[in-house]
């Protein structure tokens, strides 16, 4: 009765083997007028890892994510994704290449149901036109059924079946975060960017979310880059951590190594600059 399928891994779609570099940033600098948000930052994200980006407020973490998904354009530096150097990136291009993200302040369609919100994540995968879908006939219908199935798998995975038809605006914050993760997953991304996935959650919700993130990594064949303030979560979840402070990279390494790094301790405790 129950199809025993875990969320389907789409194996080897990028040709990047696990453990190899999926995305690399070299000497990236970004400024807004006189404000230098990122200064000469270099690091990479390897296929199949959970990469945390941490740092005090205003360190440039969200700017970093915005650079990765093509929302900001760095003035200097080279970004390579899946072995190809990127030029003139736009968010929709990044999305079509397999980069999905969630936002610090949940950005869902409040009036639409959970189901429809997650369905929007499938937009890029829809092949039929608006007209065909309006008529809901033949191939368009079959396509919708196929996508609906994918969405239902995500709903099942994130345990949100009970809110399938509830407008997301009515949902508590923790659930909205989960729906947003669902929408990002619906894109079947190769790289998933999570901007503070646990912000404003209670302990139980954080534990649930951690479990989902770990399962996403394992079962969806997805690489994850996340920004998070809860150090406990970062240290538990991530394989490698990069630390930013005032737009500069000050440390990069395993959670254990970063924790004892003097520059990191100074950044968090505050030292005169």
């Amino acid at each position: 009765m129950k199809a025993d399928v875990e969320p389907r891994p789409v194996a080897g779609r990028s040709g990047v083997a696990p453990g190899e570099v999926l995305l690399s940033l070299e000497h990236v600098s970004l400024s807004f007028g006189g404000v230098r948000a990122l200064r000469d930052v270099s690091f990479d994200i390897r296929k199949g890892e959970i990469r945390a980006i941490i740092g005090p407020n205003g360190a440039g973490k969200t700017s970093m994510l915005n650079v990765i998904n093509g929302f900001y354009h760095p003035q200097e530096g080279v970004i390579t994704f899946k072995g190809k150097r990127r030029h003139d990136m736009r968010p929709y291009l990044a999305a079509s290449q397999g980069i999905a993200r969630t936002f610090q302040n949940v950005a869902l369609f409040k009036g639409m149901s959970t189901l429809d919100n997650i369905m929007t994540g499938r937009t890029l995968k829809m092949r039929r036109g608006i007209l065909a879908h309006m008529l809901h006939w033949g191939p368009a219908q079959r396509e919708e059924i196929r996508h609906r199935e994918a969405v239902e798998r995500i709903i099942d995975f994130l345990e949100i079946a009970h809110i399938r038809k509830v407008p997301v605006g009515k949902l508590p914050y923790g659930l909205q975060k989960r729906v947003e993760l669902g929408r990002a997953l619906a894109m079947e991304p190769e790289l998933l960017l999570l901007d503070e996935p646990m912000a404003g959650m209670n302990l139980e919700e954080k534990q649930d979310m951690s479990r989902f993130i770990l399962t996403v990594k394992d079962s969806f064949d997805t690489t994850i880059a996340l920004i998070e303030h809860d150090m406990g979560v970062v240290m538990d979840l991530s394989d490698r951590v990069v630390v930013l402070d005032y737009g500069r990279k000050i440390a990069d390494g395993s959670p254990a190594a970063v924790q004892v790094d003097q520059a990191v301790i100074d950044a968090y405790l505050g030292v005169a600059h």
Partner: protein
Amino acid sequence: MTGTSASQTVAPAGDDALDTIPKLLLRNATTHALRPAIRHKDFGIWQTWTWAQLCEEVRALSIGLRKLHLKRGDTVAIIGDNRPRLYATFAAVQCLGAIPVPVYQDSVAEEMAYVLEHAEVKIAVVEDQEQVDKVVSVADRLPQLKKIIYDDPRGLKEYEATNLHAFTDVQGLGREEMHANPGAEGWWLDEIGKGQGADVSVMLYTSGTTGRPKGVMLTHANIVVSARNGNRFDGFGPDDTLLAYLPMAWVGDHLFSYGQAYTAAMCVCCPESPETVVEDRREIGPTYFFAPPRVFENLLTQIMVRMEDAGAIKRRMFHAFLGVARRCGEDILNGKRVGAADRLLYGLGNFLVYAPLRNRMGFSRTRVAYTAGEAIGPELFRFYRALGINLKQLYGQTEASVYITLQPDGEVYSDSVGKPGPDVEIKIADSGEVLFRSPGVFLKYYKNEEATRAAKTPEGWVHTGDAGFFDQRGHLKIIDRAKDVGRLNNGALFAPKYLENRLKFYPEVREAVAFGQGEDFATMLVNIDLISVGNWAERNGVAYASYQELAAHTQVIEMVRARVDEMNKALAQEPQMAASQIRRFLILHKELDADDGELTRTLKVRRSFISERYAPLIKALYDGSRSCHVATEMTFEDGRKGVVEGEVAIIDMAVYPARAPQPLREAAE
């Protein structure tokens, strides 16, 4: 196949031969092969197993379990939410003559360990990672536990334990064996043939209000005969559908969703998840529905809250027609004579209000709904009946394979639990305790001769532990647990549950615990209902961060005070109960919770535990203090503990003079 009418159960001939559940499975797989046996909503779509498919799944699992060395007489734990595969496990285990032991799926690991150890479970079939983790965490104490089988593989990929098997893999073992060995199926049929009515079919651990749970051993004859009697009483047959959503470890679910489903070849539907039950019920429209009063209470609270939020026109229409229903709805359901004008109004109300309401609640097709487990508030009971839902009460126990008394159609009263069920004898002891004897009487408690002797006389009479009496209509009335009925110092009768149930009818009150045994007057601990009061707070702009904060709000206290006052006024009208008016009460700073041991797993109040745990509060209720400081440990769902503390206000109540004794009928009005 479809010709069988709903009122006809199985053909009486051959009933004697069909004395075990596995034999019934074989019969259903032939005579009802293509009819739905079990449905489950998965990925948003209802999926169906026919009886023939169910039989095949059971056979594959059964032979697979045999390959894992499961033998006649072994015990198998079943832990999880209501899922088709877990129901199939019951049958697969029973086919081999082994004994299924369902365990409450929300038990913490410690409670689970006790049952698994006591029942000497050899294999545990569990739902998912959560349950696997719990069983694994106590496995070192369970030397006889050899295998864990899981239904849902999610999150279990990385587990390396060699004694862990996927459900489908075990079925695979069975299918391979059938492929390789043509005699396997015949062997399996022989094993089923060896089963007899007198064999133990299932062991159910009672979530007793005191002490460790006891393993109630029920035979196939207990289950099959009780199920047939139940089916005959209400005319259930293959066209009936029910929703299985109550814990599988509870006797009610075992008898309704398993025993009665197999004997009548009914279709059992499993919800998508515990959170979607209301929506799933609406989609399925069960013809037979069972729920403890709490579920009906929650449903009513939700409806009332939603109506408060509705527009003025809808709200007025709702209340106007509800008035009509209260006036004549129950008489119409009972088939009594009702005036033409009322009939017309009720018809209109049915079209505009009752039918849509029934549909929303999932009762559109419900022929029979039962409630039991606790007394149901009379207003609550009448509300559902007035809407045209045939809600009835029954009284039962695990030790009776459920049925002791039931209300026959047309003889439904809110204050009784009905007449003795088919083949059930009842007598009342001098102490007021109810005793029964029936074909459903359990064999014994597992490894507990002493308890068996205490509960069951050599003649087969079972002590229920409940106090009750037969009224002039021949209906049984239960007042309280026999040991809980006490007296105040002035000698007046004190029945705590009677008081609690009255207060709990108000939507603002979720739980109440009354005290008064050996005291001068009655007092109460109250839990507010977070849904109902929370909604009120939202509408009135009252901000709160936690249950504790809301419970201590002065307006909330005033709201509850008004309810207690109403109750006292009503109690003053009842000669036997007037002395039990509540003099002082307080609102607890935390919700009573099964994880803290304050409620049983079936959500009944554990009175003695609460009176120990909250001794300082109870003392304060009687020593005249205005408030009391309290700190209480609470357990979170994952087993971690925290402390809630605060100052709890104690409220004094006015007491009304008792009305002189009057005829009972009038007093009830």
